[in-house]
C-alpha cells in the first residue's frame, strides 16, 4: 500500500470542510411502564469534521450505533428516530430536505453486507441506477468494473452468482460511479481474511482520489490505521477522541484518551491486554464521563462531571486528565 498522504491537523483547519457534525445526538422513543414515553439516546455529543480528500475513520465496537450514524447522515433513519445537533455539508446546513435531494448523488454509501444488493436485479443495472449521467451510464459502469478487476460479464449476473469478494467490489463500484463528494463506508470489511481485507482497503482508498472525502466506519482499528488520516474513537455513543494516524505509535503515549490507549494496547502486536468490562448499553445514563466505570485513571470528579471536548496536541479529546 502506498505511503499515506499526511495532512497535519493545523493545515486542515484552514481548509473548507466537507462535512461538519457538531453536538449531534440520536434517540429513539421507548415505552416504559404505563404509557409514559421516554427516550433512549443511542448517539450523543458526537462531533466530526471531514475535509475533501481526507479519510476519517470512526472506530467503535459493534453495537455502538455506528450504522445509525451513517443512516443519520443520509437521512434514512426509521421514522421514530429523533435527532438533535448540527450537520453541515459543504458549509451549508444539511436538512432533511437537502438530504433527500443529495442522497446517492453527493453523499454515497458503501454498505456493510453483500445482502445490500437486490437479489432479483442484475448487478450492472443496480450500479447504473446511481449514475447521474444517464447517456454514459453503460460506459461508466463498465470502466468502474474494470478498474476494480471484475470480470467482463459481471454486469449480466445476479448477486447470487457472485462470490462474496465480487459482490463487495460491486458495492464499491456503486460509490465509485456516483459523483459523490462524500462517501460513507459503513463497516465495509466485516470478517474478511488478511488478503481480502488488503484488497478491499486498496479499492476504498482509490475512492478518496479526486478530492472525495470519506467516512470509514469500522470496529477494526487495524483497518482504520491502514487508510485513514484521522481516527475518531466512538465509545458509548460519544466521540471520546479524534486522533491523527501518526499518534498510534509505540505504547500509545501520544494518544489522549484512556479508552483509545486501552484499545491500542489490546492489539495482539502490542500488549494484547483487553480492557475489563463492557461498553455501556444504549440508554444507560451517566451523570459523569461515560468511560468512568472502566477507566483506570478515573477519580470521583469524573463520576459527577461530564468532560467537554478539548483540543489537545492537535487532536480532540473528552477527558479531564488528557496530557497536553
Amino acid at each position: 500500500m502506498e505511503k499515506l498522504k499526511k495532512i497535519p491537523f493545523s493545515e486542515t483547519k484552514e481548509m473548507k470542510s466537507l462535512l461538519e457534525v457538531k453536538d449531534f445526538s440520536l434517540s429513539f422513543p421507548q415505552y416504559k411502564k404505563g404509557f409514559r414515553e421516554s427516550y433512549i439516546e443511542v448517539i450523543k455529543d458526537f462531533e466530526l469534521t471531514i475535509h475533501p480528500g481526507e479519510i476519517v475513520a470512526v472506530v467503535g465496537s459493534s453495537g455502538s450505533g455506528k450504522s445509525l450514524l451513517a443512516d443519520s447522515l443520509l437521512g434514512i433513519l426509521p421514522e421514530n428516530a429523533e435527532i438533535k445537533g448540527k450537520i453541515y455539508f459543504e458549509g451549508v446546513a444539511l436538512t432533511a430536505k437537502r438530504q433527500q435531494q443529495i442522497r446517492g448523488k453527493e453523499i454515497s454509501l458503501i454498505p456493510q453486507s453483500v445482502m445490500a444488493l437486490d437479489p432479483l436485479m442484475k448487478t450492472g443495472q443496480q450500479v447504473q441506477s446511481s449514475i447521474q449521467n444517464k447517456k454514459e451510464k453503460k460506459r461508466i459502469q463498465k470502466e468502474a468494473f474494470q478498474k476494480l478487476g471484475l470480470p467482463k460479464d459481471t454486469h449480466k449476473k445476479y448477486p447470487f452468482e457472485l462470490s462474496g469478494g465480487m459482490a463487495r467490489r460491486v458495492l464499491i463500484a456503486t460509490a465509485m460511479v456516483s459523483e459523490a463528494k462524500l462517501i460513507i463506508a459503513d463497516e465495509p470489511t466485516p470478517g474478511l481474511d488478511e488478503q481480502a481485507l488488503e484488497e478491499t482497503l486498496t479499492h476504498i482508498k482509490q475512492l478518496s482520489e479526486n478530492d472525495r472525502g470519506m467516512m470509514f466506519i469500522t470496529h477494526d482499528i487495524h483497518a482504520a490505521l491502514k487508510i485513514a488520516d484521522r481516527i475518531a474513537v466512538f465509545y458509548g455513543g460519544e466521540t471520546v477522541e479524534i486522533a491523527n494516524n501518526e499518534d498510534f505509535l509505540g505504547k500509545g503515549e501520544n494518544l489522549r484518551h484512556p479508552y483509545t490507549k486501552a484499545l491500542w494496547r489490546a492489539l495482539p502486536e502490542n500488549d494484547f491486554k483487553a480492557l475489563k468490562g463492557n461498553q455501556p448499553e444504549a440508554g444507560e445514563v451517566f451523570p459523569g464521563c461515560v468511560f468512568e466505570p472502566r477507566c483506570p485513571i478515573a477519580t470521583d470528579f469524573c463520576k459527577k462531571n461530564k468532560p467537554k471536548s478539548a483540543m489537545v496536541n492537535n487532536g480532540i479529546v473528552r477527558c479531564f486528565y488528557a496530557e497536553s
Partner: protein
Amino acid sequence: MITFILKKLGKLAALLAAISILSFILISYSPVDPVRSYIGAEISRISPEQQKNIEQYWGLNQSKPQQFLQWAKALTQGNLGTSLIYREPVSEIIIDRFSASIALMGLAWLFSGVFGFLLGILAGMNEGSLLDRLIKSYCFILASTPSFWLGLLLLMFFASWLGWFPVGLASPAGSLTGEVSFADKINHLFLPVLTLSIVGVAGVALHTREKLIEVLNSEFIRFARAKGESGIKLFWRHGLRNISLPAISLHFASFGELFGGAVLTEQVFSYPGLGQAVVKAGLGGDVPLLLGITLFSVIFIFVGNFIADLLYVVIDPRMQIKPSHD
C-alpha cells in the same frame, strides 16, 4: 427442467396410486350399502334375489382385491365407471361439473388474489398504522369465518331481502343450457364468487404483508434508499419484484383451500358444480363418483402446486425449487 417435470409427474403417479388404494380401502369398508343407496326407499319392493343380481352385475360378490384390480384396470383405460345417482359415466359428470366449477373457482381465485395482494401491500407499506391494524384484524376475522355462513348471510341479504340475485342454481330452472344468456350466468355466479373471494383474501393479504415488511427491512432496501431512491419508484423497482413471485406462487399452492371453499359455497348456493356433486356422492353412497372426484381433486391440487414450483424455476433467477406449500 425436463427432469424437474418428469420428477413431478412421477410423484403425481405415485400419489394417485397411493390415494386410489387408500380411498378404495376406506370406501369399501363403509357400512353404506351401495345397492340400498342405489335403489333408495323402494328397497323393500325388491326381492332379495333381484338384489343379488344387482350385486353380481356390479361385481360386489367378488373379493375386495379383485374389485380393486378391476376398478384400477378400468381406470387406466380412462374408464371411471358409472355414477349411481346420475346414471351417467363418471368422467362425463366430472367434465360437465368441473366446467361449471372452474368459472366459480377461477374468478374467485383471481379476485381474491388481486385484492389480497393489494391489501397486503397497503398494510405492509404502513406497518403499525391504523390502516395496517384494520386490514390485519379483517384478515384474522375472515380466517375464522365459516365460509358457508358468510354465503348464507350474503344470500339472505342480497337475494332474499334485496331481491337482486336469484337464490340458487347456475341457470334459471327449466331452461335448457343453450338458452342461458351470459347475463343470466353472471347473475347466478355473482354471489358465490363474492363469497369465495372474500374468504380467499385473508391468506394472500397476510402473506404479502409479512413478506413486504421483511423486504422493506432488508439491507437492499436500505441501500436503495441510500442511493436516493424513494416512494413509488423504490417500491416498483425493489419491493414489488421481490414480493410478487412468492405471493403468486403461494396463491397457486392454495388450490386445496379453494376447492374446499367451493364445495361449501356450491352447497349454499345450490350451484351445480363439482363440489355439490361430491357432497351428493358422499351422502348418496355413489362410490364410483366419489372415487372419481377424489382422484380429480388430487390432480387439481397437484397442478396448483406444480405451477407454484414451476414459477420459481422459470422466473426466479436463483432457480431455487422451493417447497411452495406452507
